[in-house]
């Protein structure tokens, strides 16, 4: 299987992918109970966002501080479907208007808003999970990149979008659930997503989706487009003078990042069982950039490890030191930035990869020669 990807993957990449696959599909499931596994499943949903950020920021030089928007939109699309399924007239018979989500009833809505109607369909919801974030990313991208807004200005504007969306969600609580978010999600097409068994299955689904996204990201990076992105990051004007439509490439990669984030958001909703505006705003958006930075913004695999490490540290510190954990986490970030400016991926490529290479070259030179003649 893996060999068919060799055209866009070096041996090192393949080793990295294989190790990650072992970690996600073997090591974590056998070493963790369902509760912890579900937590790691949640951490991995942030990895989707971090991978998108590696493409946008690490490769394309576009720093978005608003990826939470796309994560949230994807998550809300999924949550809307699940909420409608949970709000059957029987389940909500206590309300003044049975059959609509509980928060609408609390806010004196007496009918389901028209734009909620399509979310009765799972197919539409799944489509929306990707399409809605991409649509918004496209609008933002066209508005910004066509006008050559970049760098720090772009970052600030994406922050503003995160703030706007949060305010909108909180303000329109009759339609969105407000501060509480959309809670108490139960079943997916009749399948109870809250059981331990379901959590394990969702974890694997999440893992598979993550690899699909990883391969997509790898493909983008190794394609001509990926090289152009790096060229744009380093010398945007030269790329433009060479006749390329810089804005179009930026819009594309920004949309790709949004699509990844949307998928991550949907997986988050499925595994955690609710969606709330606290995952949309400025703080989570910046946190997601931190995952990416800790992992190393140049490496898509590093981003996954970064998301895992930071969130694991967050959980562990806060369980052991409920009142001091933020300081510990802050110290971790400072340490990473000061000692390993390229994040985990930097540590890997400087210290670990050379050793692996040596190992390979010594013992498997013939194997490499036989299996990957292209090299």
């Amino acid at each position, binding site marked *: 299987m893996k060999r068919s990807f060799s055209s866009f993957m070096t041996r090192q990449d393949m080793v990295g992918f294989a190790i990650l696959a072992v970690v996600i599909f073997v090591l974590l499931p056998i070493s963790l109970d*369902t509760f912890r596994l579900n937590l790691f499943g949640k951490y991995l949903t942030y990895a989707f966002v971090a991978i998108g950020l590696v493409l946008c920021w690490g490769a394309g030089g576009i720093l978005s501080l608003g990826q939470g928007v796309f994560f949230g939109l994807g998550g809300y699309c999924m949550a809307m479907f699940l909420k409608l399924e949970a709000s059957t007239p029987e389940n909500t018979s206590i309300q003044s208007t049975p059959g609509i989500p509980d928060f609408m009833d*609390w806010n004196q809505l007496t009918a389901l808003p028209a734009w909620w109607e399509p979310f009765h369909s799972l197919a539409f919801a799944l489509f929306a999970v990707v399409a809605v974030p991409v649509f918004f990313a496209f609008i933002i991208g066209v508005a910004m990149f066509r006008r050559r807004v970049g760098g720090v200005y772009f970052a600030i504007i994406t922050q503003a979008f995160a703030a706007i969306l949060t*305010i909108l969600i909180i*303000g329109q609580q009759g339609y969105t659930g407000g501060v*509480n*978010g959309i809670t*108490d999600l139960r079943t997916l097409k009749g399948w109870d997503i809250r059981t331990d068994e379901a959590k394990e299955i969702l974890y694997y689904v999440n893992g598979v989706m993550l690899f699909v996204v990883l391969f997509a990201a790898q493909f983008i990076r190794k394609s001509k487009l990926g090289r152009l992105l790096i060229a744009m990051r380093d010398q945007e004007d030269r790329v433009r003078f060479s006749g390329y439509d810089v804005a179009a490439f930026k819009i594309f990669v920004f949309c790709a990042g949004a699509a990844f984030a949307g998928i991550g958001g949907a997986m988050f909703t499925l595994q955690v069982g*609710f969606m709330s505006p606290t995952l949309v705003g400025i703080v989570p958006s910046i946190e997601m950039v931190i995952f990416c930075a800790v992992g190393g913004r140049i490496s898509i695999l590093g981003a996954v490890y970064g998301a895992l490490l930071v969130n694991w540290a967050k959980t562990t510190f806060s369980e052991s030191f*409920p*009142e001091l954990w933020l300081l510990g986490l802050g110290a971790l970030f400072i340490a990473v930035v000061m000692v390993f400016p390229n994040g985990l991926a930097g540590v890997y490529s400087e210290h670990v990869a050379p050793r692996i290479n040596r190992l390979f070259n010594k013992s498997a030179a013939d194997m490499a020669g036989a299996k990957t003649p292209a090299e």
Partner: protein
Amino acid sequence: MSDKSKSITNTQVSRRAVLAGGAALTASLFAPKHLRAADFPTEAVNTTGLAVTDDTVTIGILHSVTGTMAISETGSVQAEKLAIEQINAQGGILGRKIEYIQEDGASDWPTFAEKAKKLLVNDKVASVMGCWTSASRKAVLPVFEQYNGFLYYPTFYEGLEESPNVIYTGQEATQQIIAGLDWVAKEKGAKSFYLLGSDYIWPRTSNKIARKHIENFLDGAKVVGEEYYPLGHTQFNSVINKIRLKKPDVIYAIVVGGSNVAFYKQLKAAGIDMTKESPIVLTISVTEDEIRGIGGENIEGAYACMKYFQSLENENNAAFVSAFKEMWGDDMVIGDVTQAAYLGPWLWKAAVEKAGSFDVDKVRAATPGIELTSAPEGYVKVHENHHLWSKTRVGKAKLDGQYEVVFETADLVEPDPFPEGYQ
């Protein structure tokens, strides 16, 4: 054996201390019948695998100690720890000392859900004292219902909920609102009301109930305005101008958190002197804790409708306030929610002892009808709908940041989370 004799002395010491006005909530109800672990073998009192050993029982404390809500929730954590310490000093529950595992919800609702699950699944805690905002409660509710946990929730809230897995030790909305409106209409002759709130479910639901009550039950009274502002909003000048234009008798304010500080300061700066009571300011969202942020001089003269004020004069409260200050420092103030949080461990203790078991199903069955004569707010009783029968009280804010109690309902007010006619 030595254990037994030690705990007996403990009881005596604790009774003496109480008489001396030192340690705490007493216990005319609990202290005399001292329960020994030996009479309650672990396998009998714990059939569902909770964290109960022969001499300890573990519960969870789940509040925000970091993030924006920490300032509000810290009081609840302190009160719960005080109650636990006092219960342990009296010999614990069914002869077992309470140990607690504290988790930080970090003012973040998904974190609350994660930690709730950790406490129930990993730590197998027998009950949880926790949550503050409705959003955090909504986030943990499915977790508690799925894993059959038992949550004591301290905050006054909007109602519209009655979970088999939650005991609501604060007031639901009607308990806080109706008596206060009746009082202001009767005592102060108020006819026109301006409703104001932060924009989320609790103020909106509360104002809905207030509006229905004003329009349907108060003779000739009317609502002249109703407005909401985003959480954290700090510019209230435009609404203050509208209020001056409409000249309502009462400003009914349900502004929360940091917005409070801005609102009352701007109200004062705009020349509305609350001590002159024209208009009267009536709030259900400012406890003694919030006044610390607002400043007594900015809110002096406003009325708040709560079930508990630190200044309540009764023996239970005197003991509670002094024990709280002894444990956490003299500069502490105690607000309504802090007191409600303090009730949690005591209510749980009473229910467990009535049930003779830590099993959640048995504790739940034993809970309705539980009475506390020793509560700082006075006598309370648990209703079948898992809320408390409590009195409603009106306090007038003083310069020193305390409230002077000016009114209390004669009887306990029945909790009614799904009020007919107010939907």
